[in-house]
């Protein structure tokens, strides 16, 4: 018995001697690591998916369209936008040689083409906008005008090739300045 007791006391003594370890761990390095990874993922992530603008082009006709059919569009309803290089923009109403409203220069701002478009669109029923980019135009100009159609809520518009007549009119206007 006495021996046993002695042993026990001995054990107790040992326990007392050992330093009581705290269960708390210093979490600072772990937090550091956590935030490092957060920063990494924050910088590499792409949140916004790209936006898109949908456009529908007409089906390409198999045969050449007869001129009578092509000119079915009434001259009084044809609003032409001519997109030129150096961010220049012109518009006229009607046909190139006998315009109802002559060629005028405008710009891409809200007071420019948007004002004209909104005014004409409310006055003319079933107005069709013909967008005619020249070879000097860039992609941004065309997208801006297509976007303008969305902003001004114009339902009928078409991307058309520019005609030599249109180019001639622009040259005339430029020389007249």
């Amino acid at each position, binding site marked *: 018995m006495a021996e046993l007791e002695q042993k026990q006391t001995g054990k107790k003594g040992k326990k007392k001697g050992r330093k009581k370890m705290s269960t708390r761990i210093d*979490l600072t390095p772990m937090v550091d690591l956590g935030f490092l990874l*957060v920063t990494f993922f924050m910088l590499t992530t792409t949140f*916004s998916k*790209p936006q898109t603008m949908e456009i529908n082009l007409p089906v390409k006709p198999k045969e050449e369209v007869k001129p009578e059919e092509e000119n079915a569009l009434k001259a009084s309803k044809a609003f032409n936008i001519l997109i030129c290089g150096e961010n220049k923009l012109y518009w006229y109403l009607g046909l190139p040689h006998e315009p109802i409203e002559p060629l005028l220069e405008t710009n891409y701002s809200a007071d420019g083409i948007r004002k004209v478009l909104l005014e004409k669109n409310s006055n003319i029923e079933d107005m069709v906008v013909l967008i005619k980019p020249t070879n000097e135009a860039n992609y941004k100009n065309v997208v801006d005008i297509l*976007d303008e159609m969305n902003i001004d809520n114009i339902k009928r518009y078409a*991307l058309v090739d520019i005609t030599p007549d249109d180019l001639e009119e622009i040259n005339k206007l430029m020389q007249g300045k």
Partner: protein
Amino acid sequence: MPKVKVPRKSTLIDMTAMCDVAFLLLTFFMLTTQFKSDESVIVDTPSSISEIKLPDTDILNITITADGKVFFNIDNKNFSRERLLTRISEKYPELQFTPEEEKAFVLTGSIGVPLAQLKGYLALEETERKLYPQPGIPMDSTNNELGIWIMQGRLANPNVRITIKGDQAAPWPIVKKVMDTLQDKNVNKFNLITDLEADPNKLKGI
């Protein structure tokens, strides 16, 4: 005056809460992240008010750079890239690809080399490929390779949606040519990738 005894406090702060926050955020970002794809071509897209989001898969993208080069890209859903390359080599028996080149094609991003140079381009090391000056896909009327790519891409993945990602300064004649090529291949509906811009009509309401 009695001395005010300031009790000495430990400078150690309990980091557990902060650690919780850090890992919560970490988990969130890890689950939502989609890595930016390393594109060999950088384009600055124009902006529009359109708010249609683009899906991640089933995309056939045509990139037009500011200097008028055209690049082709298709995502690899259901191994469509592998099938596309197989189709190309079936159509052009002179173009046969090794398994390494096929693997390179699957992993690489946009393609902007003529078909004749494709084999050589894919044989390059990955780092060299990034530096390789890609001339763009030819679109001449006699040799419209873009048309071939579009055709084969659509056959490889019939659900594909065609997008055009053009630089702001991309010349219109090139864009027009791309659109004409698409129309020739009976693709009349496609998407233009743009940045978001505030809608002035909505701004008025605020």
